[in-house]
């Protein structure tokens, strides 16, 4: 069980708010009210809550394409977020940014859909805080796929060399889009980060108490002027890379999707001139296995809300769940009404 000082109720409340918000986004997207891609942050709630709860006014967060859970935890207005997703002029960014490009100047929160860019941007906030001696800390969130992006590794070196108050938070869901990260990554991410000369810690990203403790050390260290740290938090990606993820659809609708995917694969298998049979058989197997793998993992991955929620009294937990559900539901309802009234 977590020690007394972990504010479990607050942390879990933030997780529940974030989860309900992601669920609401998924529903709005399915209804066609949100355009474009949609990368849900479902599965990352414990990381968002455990890290962001340490931040004060004047701290900054630099986010990636799964930016909503940290923004919800940071206290960004839910209606402004929903309106933004709907492309409304009254949205958080006036309908200009959309779900991958969310900015809140008053929260010093920025985001980018370019993989890896959250780290060097975070570096800039950290530099400003150091220069102006504000005592502020910047946090950069990114996935393990971004750990192979040069700009992120360059940012790590700079942060250490200049002792900048930056916390690197790597959300490791093991998939870079639809590629298994381990197939395209050399060495271990933890020792990679350590080799730059900063503390690096692995943490169970489904346990909010553990994330909270690890993040406390990293944020305090940055605040004391001791420089950056790296957190590697394993967490699941239950909704795939994005809502249109073909791998997830195969899992949900195996027959329908197979009927769609198989015929062109078969035609290609038989395309002339014929290549070596063993090569074709093996390659076909790899595609099939990849498509099945994510679905399998989805069944086996623990849900952070379940795992963290078990640390609470069941009655308390269900009360928080209910409050969070209602808060988000009402925010979405008000937003849709507001939109209809001025449409």
């Amino acid at each position, binding site marked *: 069980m977590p020690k007394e000082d972990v504010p479990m109720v607050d942390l879990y409340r933030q997780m529940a708010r974030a989860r309900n918000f992601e669920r609401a986004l998924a529903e709005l997207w399915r209804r066609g009210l949100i*355009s474009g*891609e949609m990368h849900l942050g479902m599965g990352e709630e414990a990381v968002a809550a455990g890290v962001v709860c340490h931040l004060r006014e004047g701290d900054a967060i630099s986010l990636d394409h799964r930016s909503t859970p940290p923004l919800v935890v940071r206290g960004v207005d839910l209606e402004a977020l929903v309106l933004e997703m709907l*492309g409304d002029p009254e949205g958080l960014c006036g*309908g200009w940014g*959309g779900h*991958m490009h969310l900015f809140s100047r008053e929260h010093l929160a920025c985001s980018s859909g370019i993989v890896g860019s959250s780290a060097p941007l975070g570096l800039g906030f950290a530099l400003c805080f150091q220069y102006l001696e504000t005592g502020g800390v910047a946090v950069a969130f990114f996935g393990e796929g971004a750990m192979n992006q040069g700009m992120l590794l360059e940012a790590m070196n700079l942060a250490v060399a200049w002792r900048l108050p930056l916390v690197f938070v790597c959300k490791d869901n093991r998939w870079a889009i639809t*590629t298994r*990260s381990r197939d395209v990554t050399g060495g271990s991410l933890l020792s990679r980060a350590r080799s730059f000369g900063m503390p690096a810690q692995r943490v169970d990203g489904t346990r909010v108490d553990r994330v909270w403790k690890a993040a406390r050390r990293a944020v305090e260290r940055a605040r004391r002027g001791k420089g950056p740290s790296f957190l590697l938090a394993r967490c699941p990606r239950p909704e795939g890379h994005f809502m*249109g993820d073909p791998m997830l659809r195969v899992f949900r609708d195996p027959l329908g999707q197979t009927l769609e995917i198989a015929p062109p694969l078969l035609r290609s298998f038989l395309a002339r001139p014929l290549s070596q049979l063993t*090569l074709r058989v093996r390659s076909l197997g790899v595609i099939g296995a990849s498509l099945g793998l994510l679905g399998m993992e989805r069944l086996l991955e623990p849900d952070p809300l379940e795992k963290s929620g078990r640390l609470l009294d069941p009655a308390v937990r269900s009360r928080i769940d209910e409050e969070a559900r209602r808060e988000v539901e009402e925010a979405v309802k008000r937003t849709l009404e507001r939109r209809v009234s001025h449409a």
Partner: protein
Amino acid sequence: MPEMTYAQAIDFALGQAMAEDPRIVIFGEDVVMLRRELYVRFGPRRVRNTPISEAAFLAMGVGAAMAGLRPVVEIMMVDFIAVALDALLNQATKVRAFSGGRWNVPLVIRASCGGGYGDGGQHMQCLWGLLSSMPGLWVAVPSNPQDAAALMLSCLRTEDPVIFMEHKLLSDYWRDYLGGESRGTVAFDVPERGRVGQVELPLQPLPPGKGVVMKEGGDLTMVSLGVGAHRCLEAAELLAARGIRAEVVDLRWAKPLDAELIASSVEKTGRLLVVDEDYTGYGLSGEVAALLAERGVKLAFGRVGTDGVIPYDIRRENQTLPNAERIKRAALALMEQQEGRAGGTVTR
């Protein structure tokens, strides 16, 4: 003549070329899944997933091309090429000159581009103006399945770096992937003639820098490429209802530019409207105007492009990207001008 979708046609050309030329390898993010049909046929040595490391793997393509391979490097969305610009601007496009013409870089970059589905200004750019500004780089922008297959073949036979741009609105798997057709609740304005069509076999490459007249007319010339060419055709229909006969030219290549074809059309019509889904300023439309001015062609000139950052809000996006209505308005404004009169129109 088999019927193919736009993306099927591209992969068909690739498959044919890969079967003939073992030096062709494909690599990029997610290509095992995206090009699974080529993966099944040609296996893991020739179709390779990369990490999300654009700067490294695009430059790797440059080195591999110098060493003797013919890499097709995929940049998932052309917006992401910004991360890897050095590989193009300072490496790929410099080798031929720096080696005194003794070394070339037969590199094909395949990148998706374009908007029309509400994804915001960081994922829907065209950028062929930016890319074309680099000496030594050619840029193909096919508008339909036949051209897509033929231009991919042209790219694969080019001895220098070339970028092949695939418009997401035309590619079925992109529309699906980006959450369009996987839910029944949204609809995109997809040009039918670009989406699917007959592909003539045996496949022949098209000469670089040669455009085509898609529709003949004598009153004004509209020049575009990619989805823009279809928007011009739609606008031409609207204009026809008012008795105006527009000629529509599909450039097929942002670079080299088919100045001959544009000039010969404008010499006939005296009016030119450039329709460009890429940014209006410092790009294709200005280049076309400059080429005609250098040739001393007298014309009335206008352009319809994308001004500023593309808004996420799809309603505003639809007004920002060239659409048939905007093109029609600009064309009507041009029709009111005297041929060759100084000063053109810019519509916003």
